[in-house]
Every structure is written in C-alpha cells, then in structure tokens.
C-alpha cells in the first residue's frame, strides 16, 4: 500500500504537506505593504499614550506636577501611580512571581522606568505633554553590579523589606531574589576533589536585548455599551494576556478579546506584560475611547525585557584521557529592578539545568542566585528556550577550556564525551530526559564537510607565519555542538502564571473540502500559516493550499500558551497533527459508509480512503467532507470538526553541529567570517525552505550577540547603547552567507517526530562565533575572554597577550 507509485507521488505532492518547501502564504500581503501590525490599527477617536520616564536609575519620586501638561490643548489625561492605586493597578505581577511597578510608586529603580502616562489627541501632543510633566526626584545610590548589590546596605526593593522568603524560596539578602539549585552538590564536589583534571573558568554572558524591528505596543478599546474590552497588541502569548488582563482588571474573561495582529518579530521581547499595556487599558476604560501606545526604539531598548546578564563560574572534572566526570555551575543572575523573567513558574532560571549539554556527564550541580540591581527588568529568552543560550554557551566554553587544560583537540574532546545514540532516551544528571539524538553522526558529518583536519593544518601554518612576522591575521576555528530543550512543556511541571503549557488546534472542514484551523500560538515571522497547513495536509489529505490557518484572536482561537521557546511546532504542531487524526478517524467512518464496507475495511491513502486491496474503490477527502454535511450518516453527527489540546509528554531536544572559520586582524580587532557551516537536526522537517531561513536568521542574531550587541550601562545606571547607532544590529554588509546542512533524528514522542528549529541557530551560533574568536588566540595562551567580541575587546585580548609588541 505504501509503494510510491508515480500516481501516488503526484497526489502526495499536490497536498504540499510535510517535507515540501512550500512558498509562504503570508508573503503576498507583506510584499505589498498590506501587513496589519499593531501600529496600523486605527480607530475613530483613538487617543495616543506616551510615557514620562525616569532619567535616573535610582531615585525617590518626591512629586509629580501634571498641571502644565493637562493645560495643553489636546491632552486628555495624565495618569500616575496615585491614579492607578485605587484600581490596584499601580503594580502588576510579573511572569516570574515578582511584582513590578506599572507607574513609579514612590521611587524608580532603573533609567527609563515608567513614571506617568500621558493620554492625548495625537502622538505629537502626547510627546509635548510628556515634556511638561514636572517630576521632582531625589537621587539615590545606584547599583549596577549584582555582586556589589548583594553586599550593599542600599535596599533596592523597599516594598519587599523584611520578606525573607520569595516566590522561589529563601532570600539571603535584601537585594537577593532567589536561589535555585539542581543536581547533587555533594557528589559533584566529591568528584571535583578527586578528579585527575579540573578546569575552572568564570565567564560573563553580557546583557543584550531581542530588539525585534517592530517595537512593543497595543491598542486598548473599552466598549462601554457592550462592556467589552478589545486589546490589539504585540503579544507572543495572547491568551495568557487575556487571562492576566481579566485577573488584573476584574473584567470577566469572556468580555475581553485579545488580538495579536501581524507581529514584526518577537524573539522573546513580546512575551512579557508591560506597563504600557496596563496603562492603555486603564486609559481606555477611563476615557471610553480607544487608546494606542507604541514605544519608540529607545524605550524598547531601555525599558522592555532584556536578555542574558548571567555571571557563570564553572568547574569541570575529567580523567587525563578527557572523559568528563563531573560539572559544577554557579550563576549570579542580574534581573534588574524587578524579576520580570519569562520562564515557566517552577523554573526561575529557566532550563539552565540543560547546562550539561550534549555530553554524558555522570554528576553535576547547578546553583543560580537571582539579584536585583538598578537596571531594566527582564531576563527573557532571546531567540532561545528559557536560558538555553546561557547554558549552551557555558558548557561549550567549558569544553574548550577543558581541552586547553588537557592539551587536547576540542573536537575530539567533544566526540569522546557525547551521549551515545544507544543511550537515548537519556537521563541527564540535572534531571532531563533527552528524547533522541545521534550526535556522533552529526559531528562526523560536520567535521568532514569542512575538512576539519585541513583547517587545523592551515591554522598551524598561519600561526607559524604570524610568529615569523609574515602576517598579522590569525585564523580561528569555532566549534559548537548544542542540544536544545524546547517545546515547553508537560503541564505537570511547566506553567505560566498557573496556566499549563499545553497548546491547541481546532479544525473545521468545510463542505467543499477546504478547511480552517485555529491554534493557540502566534507567528511573528515563523510562517505558521504555511507550515501548520502542511502538517494538516499530510494528516487530513487536503491540500495545504485549501487550509487557512488562523492564530492570535482569543475570541476564535482555542486557548494556547503562545509562541516562544521554539514551542509552536513541538506543542501546537502536535496538537494540529492530533486534531487532524481525529478528523481522519471520523472521515474513515464516513468513507466506510459511503463505500458500503466496514470501517476496518478502508484505509487512508494520501488524500482518500480506499477499500483495502481495491484501490479503484475510494472516496477522496473532498467527497467525504461533502458527505459529512449533506448526508444523514447513521450513528454520526453531521459536520467534520475536531479540536485537540495537546499536553506533550516531554520536551523535544533538537541538536546541531556548527563550525565557523574566522580571520582576525590582530591590529584592528576586526573579525571576518570566512565560512560558517551549520548542521541542524530538528527531527522531522516540515518545510526545508523555512527551516533554512530560520537558521540564517538565528545565526545572524548569534553573530550580533557574540560580536558586539549589548545593553551597556555606566556606573550611574545610564544606558549607553539605547539607539541603533550603538546597539549592534548587523546589516547585509556585515553578515556572511551561511552553509546549512542537516541530519534527521525524529522525536519519538512527537506525533510527527518534529522538534522545533527557530532558536537552535541562535543557541548554537553564539558559542560557535565566540569559540572562533577565542580559538584564534589559543595558540598564544588565551584561555577565555568575555563577549561581546567587538573590535576593541578583540584588540584588547591581542594586546593582553603581547601580540602588539
């Protein structure tokens, strides 16, 4: 039955299902300028909101005088914490179990913090009014260093004074948030104490920002006649926003409709709930007309969720031959003024405990301390599953450091420590069950493709030439092998604000054999409307071109937890497949009835059910769809619809092998990427074209982070990198072409074996770029240097190594 005859192959190709590089259905509107982003939403009478923000990183707010602003023609309202307090909306809960000021309540904790919300006729008047709000501040001592913070007498969060326990356990100091420990510290220390070799290193993963090209914003519209609140916004998780909005406002959830229109990139920045959303809702409730708030780029970089800012110290134990015997990781996490991480509730440091990486490490320990400072709140996952970039960077740097300690080749060190194919499902020392993998095959393929041995030979020649004074360029070979953990996640241990992290799909087949499917996720560029239709096409035998995918409208889509952490394919994609199978099960009964045989006597064949052994007797899915609506079929309800809420049994674990070849100008610190090879294994591949696009994009964001992109503060807590002049977003000129490759190791527990890919290239790319820089200097004694590797820092490394003498 499964022989691919040309005729079947043609029918299969017509479906444009799994594995097809189907062109995107989204593109028609985007290429014609007809996307509909939040700032395109325009409503009669709509007002504009704008924030008065703190110029100081830490200050007491002595007074706020709104008179001059209110006197300006066109200004409708100026909201402060005092106005929000009676509604109990001057503070809001964060996704991390902390709370955050919506508007400054007595003090400010970071530069750019929201102090007052001006509502005016248009954006010009609002901006003028912002200038007219007079705020008197009394400056307080500023702390921008988490280690200093833990020693300081200065209490940053006075609202928490005296609270020795937080949502994640005991607090050790008034500026301490939580301690999170995983693994066996005693056994790990024992291994370290008795190890033949221990490599130790401290590293800082600098603060950066997801910086999608579209900033965050919303339009709130309170319809007082019907009692309905509609909220359009840049929400990566619209359903959760609806629930939170209901809990905070007291408006019943059925009276709130949240719509995520087209989103201009998210990368984690649009997961959180921001003061602008709350203020817009309140302003619309107060004024009775729609209120729009869209932040500008400086506000986006200064005040909405940052990523990373992890201080990590590692100890890795091994035998003299290089077999790793234990790993110890201690992290100090700078969360800024409020802990506004977007992690599943029980994981205050996300999935940092994936930090044993792709290696069979028998014993390990991870300890993370969260700390308050006078910096912007956040700690979101920028193009990665929760803290996975930090974890992978950590282990991939520790491997390199261990290789130096052992005087071994870093590729070989990886190879001898990889989890073996036969060890899957693999239980990691820090508590995860890796679903599937074949690391050795991927690694060997990668090294062979790039001619790793040849590269090392060339590098050695280059070093010799450098030492002879014949060149000032060094060659770095960056390696990384990563294992991601995505697709949160099982409801038993993953939730956001109590909502289990399942996802959903609802399908309706129309009588003429086309369909609409709605999911609880929301695309921000990933192409869901294209790929989810492909999953369904293969499951239900209707062409992807006949299936409309809708997301992002909570009035129509089933509840879901949204799109981040590469969870759309692993969770909602699974829900789509499962819903498709429900459709198919009913279709089978209809087909059997139409063909006048027993249910078990028909079988699915690409786009039809056929009578077993009699392929010329069949009913296509189109026939079946029509029958579902126009015939009374005994024992069956009319119609053809299904819904699935999918609670994944486990996460999925995509992996990959990356190699970067870089040439570094020792004198100017300018790196040039000569070659980048990326092999990704994301299990079953739904749309190779889109996968490749995701890999290009993720690698480019990785390049940016590794080579210069940072949110930097001065000692006064001023943001030094608040515009795109200084916040590094590479252009086409700075980005190389990437070579992509793949292996396919399906997830055993996912209905179609898919694992998710959007974030892999970022997770694996950052250590690969960084390792390339560091590898170039390894022959001259470099052990580790922190990112970002911008020109001056690379130059500094060379200088510290005496290469400029």
């Amino acid at each position: 039955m499964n022989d691919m005859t040309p005729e079947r192959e043609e029918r299969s190709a017509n479906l444009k299902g799994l594995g097809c590089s189907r062109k995107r259905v989204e593109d028609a509107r985007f290429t014609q300028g007809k996307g509909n982003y939040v700032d395109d939403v325009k409503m009669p009478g709509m007002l504009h909101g704008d924030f008065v923000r703190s110029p100081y990183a830490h200050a007491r707010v002595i007074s706020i005088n709104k008179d001059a602003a209110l006197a300006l023609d066109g200004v409708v309202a100026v909201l402060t914490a005092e106005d929000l307090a009676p509604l109990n909306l001057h503070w809001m809960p964060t996704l991390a179990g902390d709370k955050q000021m919506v508007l400054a309540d007595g003090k400010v904790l970071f530069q750019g913090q929201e102090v007052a919300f001006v509502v005016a006729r248009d954006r010009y008047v609002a901006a003028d009014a912002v200038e007219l709000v007079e705020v008197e501040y009394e400056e307080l001592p500023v702390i921008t260093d988490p280690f200093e913070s833990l020693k300081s007498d200065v209490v940053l969060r006075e609202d928490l004074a005296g609270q020795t326990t937080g949502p994640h356990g005991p607090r050790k100091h008034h500026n301490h948030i939580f301690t999170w420990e995983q693994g066996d510290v005693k056994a790990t220390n024992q291994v370290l104490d008795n190890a033949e070799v221990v490599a130790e290193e401290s590293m800082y993963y600098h603060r950066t920002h997801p910086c999608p090209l579209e900033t965050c914003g919303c339009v709130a519209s309170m319809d007082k006649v019907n009692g309905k609140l509609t909220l359009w916004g840049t929400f990566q998780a619209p359903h959760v926003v609806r629930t939170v909005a209901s809990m905070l406002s007291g408006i019943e959830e059925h009276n709130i409709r949240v719509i995520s229109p087209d989103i201009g990139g998210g990368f984690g920045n649009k997961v959180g709930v921001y003061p602008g959303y709350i203020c817009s809702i309140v302003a619309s409730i107060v004024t009775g007309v729609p209120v729009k708030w869209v932040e500008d780029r400086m506000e986006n970089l200064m005040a909405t969720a940052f990523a990373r800012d992890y201080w990590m110290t590692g100890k890795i134990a091994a035998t003299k031959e290089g077999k790793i015997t234990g790993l110890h990781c201690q992290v100090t996490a700078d969360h800024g003024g409020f802990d506004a991480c977007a992690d599943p509730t029980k994981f205050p440091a996300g999935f940092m405990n994936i930090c044993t990486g792709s290696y069979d490490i028998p014993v390990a320990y991870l300890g993370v301390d969260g700390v308050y400072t006078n910096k912007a709140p956040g700690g979101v996952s920028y193009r990665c599953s929760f803290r996975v970039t930090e974890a992978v960077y950590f282990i991939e740097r520790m491997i390199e450091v261990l290789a130096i300690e052992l005087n071994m080749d870093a590729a070989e060190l990886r190879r001898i420590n990889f989890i073996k194919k036969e060890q899957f499902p693999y239980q990691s020392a820090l508590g995860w069950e890796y679903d599937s993998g074949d690391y050795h095959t991927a690694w060997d393929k990668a090294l062979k493709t790039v001619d790793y041995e040849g590269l090392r030979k060339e590098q050695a020649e280059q070093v010799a030439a450098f030492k002879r004074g014949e060149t000032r360029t060094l060659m770095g070979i960056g390696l990384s092998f990563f294992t991601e953990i995505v697709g949160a996640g099982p409801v038993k241990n993953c939730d956001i604000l109590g909502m289990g992290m399942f996802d959903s799909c609802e399908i309706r087949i129309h009588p003429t054999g086309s369909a609409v499917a709605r999911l609880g996720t929301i695309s921000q560029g990933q192409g869901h409307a294209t790929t989810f239709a492909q999953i369904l096409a293969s499951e239900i035998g209707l062409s992807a071109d006949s299936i409309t995918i809708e997301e992002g409208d909570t009035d129509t889509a089933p509840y879901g937890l949204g799109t981040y952490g590469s969870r759309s394919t692993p969770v909602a994609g699974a829900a789509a497949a499962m819903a498709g199978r429900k459709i198919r099960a009913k279709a089978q009964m209809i087909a059997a009835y139409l063909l006048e045989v027993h249910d078990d006597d028909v079988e699915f064949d690409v786009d039809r059910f056929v009578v077993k052994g009699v392929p010329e007797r069949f009913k296509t899915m189109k026939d079946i769809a029509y029958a579902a609506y126009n015939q009374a079929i005994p024992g069956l309800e009319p119609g053809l619809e299904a819904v699935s809420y999918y609670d994944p049994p486990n996460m999925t674990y995509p992996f990959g092998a990356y190699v970067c070849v870089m040439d570094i100008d020792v004198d100017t610190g300018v790196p040039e990427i000569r070659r980048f090879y990326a092999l990704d294994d994301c299990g079953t591949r739904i749309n190779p074209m889109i996968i490749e696009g995701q890999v290009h994009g993720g690698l480019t964001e990785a390049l940016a982070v590794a080579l210069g992109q940072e949110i930097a503060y001065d000692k006064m807590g001023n943001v030094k990198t608040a515009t795109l002049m200084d916040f590094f977003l590479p252009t086409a000129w700075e980005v190389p072409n990437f070579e992509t490759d793949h292996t396919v190791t399906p997830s055993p527990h996912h209905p179609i074996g898919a694992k998710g890919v959007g974030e892999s290239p970022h997770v694996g790319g950052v250590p690969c770029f960084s390792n390339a820089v560091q590898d170039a200097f390894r022959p001259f004694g470099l052990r580790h240097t922190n990112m970002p590797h911008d020109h001056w820092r690379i130059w500094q490394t060379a200088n510290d190594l005496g290469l400029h003498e």
Partner: protein
Amino acid sequence: MSDKMHIKLNVNGEDHEFLAEPRDLLIYTLREKLNITGPHVGCDTSHCGACTVTLNGKSVKSCTMFVAQANGAEITTIEGIGQPDALHVLQESFREHHGLQCGFCTPGMITRATKLLEEIPNPTEKEVRFGMAGNICRCTGYQNIVKSILAAASELNAAQEAAE
C-alpha cells in the same frame, strides 16, 4: 504649536493636499494621514530603513524627514510598486526565495531594492549587500534577501534583453 502649512504631495501617482504642522514626520503623514501603512517605523533614528520610500527619485528614510521638507514631492511607497494582479518582479522574487519572515522590514526593503536595481541594473552580490546596507532585517540574515534581489535583477535584465 506652530501654524499649519498647506502641503501637497503626490503619492503613488495620486495627489494629496492637506494642512499639517511642519514638524509632522513624513512617515506618520503617510501612515496616519494618508493611510499608507506599508512603510514602518523601526528605529526612529534613520538606521533601519523600514520607513524607506522613494522621494523625487531618491531612496530616503521617511522617519527622518519633516513633511514640510517633502512638500511638493513625488513619492513612491511599496503600495505604488506593484498591484495584486501585477506584482513587481521583486515582490514575486522575495516570495519565491523566502526573502522575508515577519514582513516588517519588507516594504522598505523592496522599495529600496527597486531603486538599487535602477542604480545598478546588474549588481554583484557585494553590490547588493552594500546597496541594501541601509535596511535592517532581524529575521532572515539577509542571505535570501540578497538571493531575491539578484534573481529579480536577472529576470528584469532577461526581460529587457528580450524586449530589445
């Protein structure tokens, strides 16, 4: 507030006349007054190019231009580059080669690319990368954008040759 000015613009072949404050930024005039929402605001400081339009034959960033400066100008936005039943080759090519993801940069990107191909009808990859360096994309890593533009150039040149 300063006095409003009488502004005339020709956008995508259509004349518009209205009163505006001189400080109104061209991008918001297009988006909010004329409902031409293809061009977007990405950075506010002329770095990202999401707001790119063609003004009197020049590629310009409309977030860094006052409507008063544009008074009297002829402007083309993404909306004027092709029509649903007659797309520009670049619009087809971006779709064909997956030259976009979230779509937010795409109108500015394609608008700039139309001008680039006027400046250099048969560009090399390097010339495309250099000529597009005023437009930031956060999603694609540019590889497929470059591919889209090079493919469009080939197609336009082939059509040109065929016509000659």
